[in-house]
């Protein structure tokens, strides 16, 4: 029997049900608890900024690929939605709307699409966008909104501003408030509880491995512990260091970005430790208010190098040869 309609392909003839869109959807679901928390803590404006950021990212990705790059439409993979949410989560809720749009434009067009789109960018788009905004709009980016200034308060810049615990230690919220996110800060980073729920969801769904978040957070804890021991500060200092700033948001959602972190577990641990160390150095000795974004972006740049030294040797490669090859490399 001749059959012209048979489909011929290389093996395997079965594929798993896992898709890029499915993975991205899982990440979005994992971000929902933190989004709800941001609405509760910072009011409607936090949700409006997130929605605006998502819409802009999706629009820029679609229009830039369609009209400038003249390439396929990739909005359906939902990665632009994640960039939109993550960038919004890294902004104070009082930020002017037009700044959000410019940040999104930079993140999607410059950091992501100009380098070839999904999987090709060498730094995390949301972090790239955030750092661009931090350098361009330093004032607005560091005017932290106080929590609970009224749900319907959409005034933005007129809202009360206060210092984050990282900047000023005069008026520290309680550890419980820190954990639940009742403090000033970027709109998505404060509620550690919600971020951990999202992180657990990602681990259960096997979207991320625990290697990067754990090594990142543990390194910060260890270094801050040593610092406390040497300086003689209270153990509380370590806890506040862990719960403040964007550590959990960065460690769980941004350092684990596939395209900008190593593939092997060994590489992931080195990456996480590197992020932790740079974060601590910036927080303890730098003049910047926060080090998580910078640490991740620096380690993003080092990723190809980490990959090169941590890629496992093919099965059964003799030990001796392994060493000889390493010496060569």
């Amino acid at each position, binding site marked *: 029997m001749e059959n012209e309609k048979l489909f011929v392909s290389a*093996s395997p003839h079965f594929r798993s049900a896992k898709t890029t869109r499915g993975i991205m959807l899982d990440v979005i679901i994992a971000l929902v608890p933190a989004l709800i928390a941001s609405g509760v803590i910072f009011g409607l404006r936090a949700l409006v900024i997130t929605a605006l950021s998502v819409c802009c990212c999706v629009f820029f990705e679609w229009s830039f690929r369609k009209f400038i790059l003249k390439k396929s439409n990739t909005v359906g993979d939902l990665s632009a939605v994640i960039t939109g949410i993550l960038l919004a989560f890294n902004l104070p809720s009082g930020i002017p709307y037009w700044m959000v749009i410019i940040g999104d434009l930079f993140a999607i067009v410059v950091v992501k699409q100009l380098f070839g789109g999904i999987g090709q960018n060498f730094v995390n788009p949301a972090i790239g966008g955030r750092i661009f905004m931090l350098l361009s709009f330093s004032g607005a980016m560091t005017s932290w909104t106080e929590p609970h200034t009224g749900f319907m308060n959409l005034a933005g810049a007129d809202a009360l501003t206060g210092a984050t615990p990282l900047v000023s230690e005069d008026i520290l919220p309680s550890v419980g408030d820190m954990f639940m996110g009742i403090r000033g800060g970027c709109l998505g980073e404060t509620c550690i509880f919600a971020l951990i729920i999202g992180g657990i969801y990602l681990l259960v769904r096997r979207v991320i491995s625990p290697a990067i978040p754990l090594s990142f957070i543990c390194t910060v804890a260890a270094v801050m512990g040593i610092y406390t021991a040497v300086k003689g500060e209270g153990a509380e200092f370590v806890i506040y260091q862990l719960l403040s700033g964007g550590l959990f948001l960065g460690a769980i959602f941004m350092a684990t970005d596939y395209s900008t972190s190593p*593939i092997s577990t060994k590489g992931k641990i080195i990456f996480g430790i590197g992020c932790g160390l740079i974060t601590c150095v910036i927080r303890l000795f730098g003049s910047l208010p926060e080090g998580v974004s910078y640490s991740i972006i620096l380690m993003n740049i080092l990723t190809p190098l980490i990959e090169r030294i941590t890629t496992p040797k093919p099965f*059964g490669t003799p030990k001796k040869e392994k060493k000889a090859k390493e010496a060569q490399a």
Partner: protein
Amino acid sequence: MSKIPAGVLTAVKKVRGGVAVDHRKNTADLEVVRIPTPEKVVIPMQMHIGAPCEPVVKPGDDVSVGQVIGDTDKFVSAPIHATVSGKVKAVGDIKMPNGILAKAVTIESDGEMRLWEGIEPPKVTNRDEFLKAVRASGLVGLGGAGFPTHVKLGFSPDKNIDTLVINAAECEPFITVDYRECIDNSWDILSAVYTIKDLLGFKNVVIAVEDNKPEAFNVLKRIADNEYDVGDKVKLMVLKSRYPQGAEKMMVQSATGRKVPPGKLPADVGCVVMNVASAAFVSRYLKTGKPLVSRSLTVDGSAIAEPKNVRVPIGTNIGEIIDFCGGFKTEPGKIITGGPMMGLAIVNTDLPVLKQNNAILAFDKNDAQFKKQTDCIRCGSCAAACPLSLTPTNIVRATKAKDYETMKRIGVNVCMECGSCAYSCPAGIPLVQYMKLAKAVLREEAAK
């Protein structure tokens, strides 16, 4: 299987990676049925890895079952036998399932299935006679690879090979013929295990089975615990079912903890891995002298009306076998020989069954569709799934860039094309196709 009884081995060293594929062993309870003698068989002269055979018959010759119709003096090869009795109709090129032209002998059957008068049980008392007999039987690895068995078993006696692994893992979805072999022909397996062990001087024999086949487990357990087993040298090993557990290198690792280095064979680390159906055939051949003229196949898939396990003469037309299984119940979208993970998609059903084919699977249009291919997101699923510690996405990248040095360094040629990477890729990238391409590119580069 929840509890592993005492005396049964588990993996010495767990295999990394792999994928949990749906077993779909729908035909496990179906006994193997013989199909009616086909009117015509087309027997290719190359159904093994190594040198092709030259036809030794010409059109018009009368042949009977088991008569040699193709042979060569090359060592790495296996003779080909007539699988039906009748008249040779043609000797000429045909297109093989993989698209390559090969010589083939077409025999028109007289329907009698007359055995060749020259068939008699071989006299085997020592190693050399045994290996000669195995070659004469035309046996090649029945698990799918088609490597001539006498070459595999013909290792130099001073090479210090101590372990024989009988592979009944059958980790590919759908296929159940090895399982049926365990259930239906356990005596053959029993006698094969002890014959091969004694003649070739193996110190240990490990019979490996996956834990999703409890009945096969019980049968094989009795073989391993048999009274012939002086000094308890034959052991059963039960493995957690996971693809590609049954691959040779993985088997060696599970059974002995040894790792076969890149470019080497199991024999280089003191092991020989043999498919359970191949072993059973060896003992049948020693008893009857009837060479490899038929084999069992699983016929299954969403487009097959009545899935079956069938015994067919080698060279039977695939379309005829499908017709025997009730034909197609829906329009087929894809037909493959072998399992869904490593099998070969064929362009039409007008092709002969080869010695090493263990299944014919036909899928409907829906199953034939893959998810749309999108860009790599570097999620690392492929690297996590690779049992050989490769990073397929990096190989793809290096291949696209024609970066030969990197390609060699990251081990392109280690890949055994098990398909675990492509199976797990969320972006639907045909990674195995890239691996094949990468190997071809390297070969081309080396030839320059």
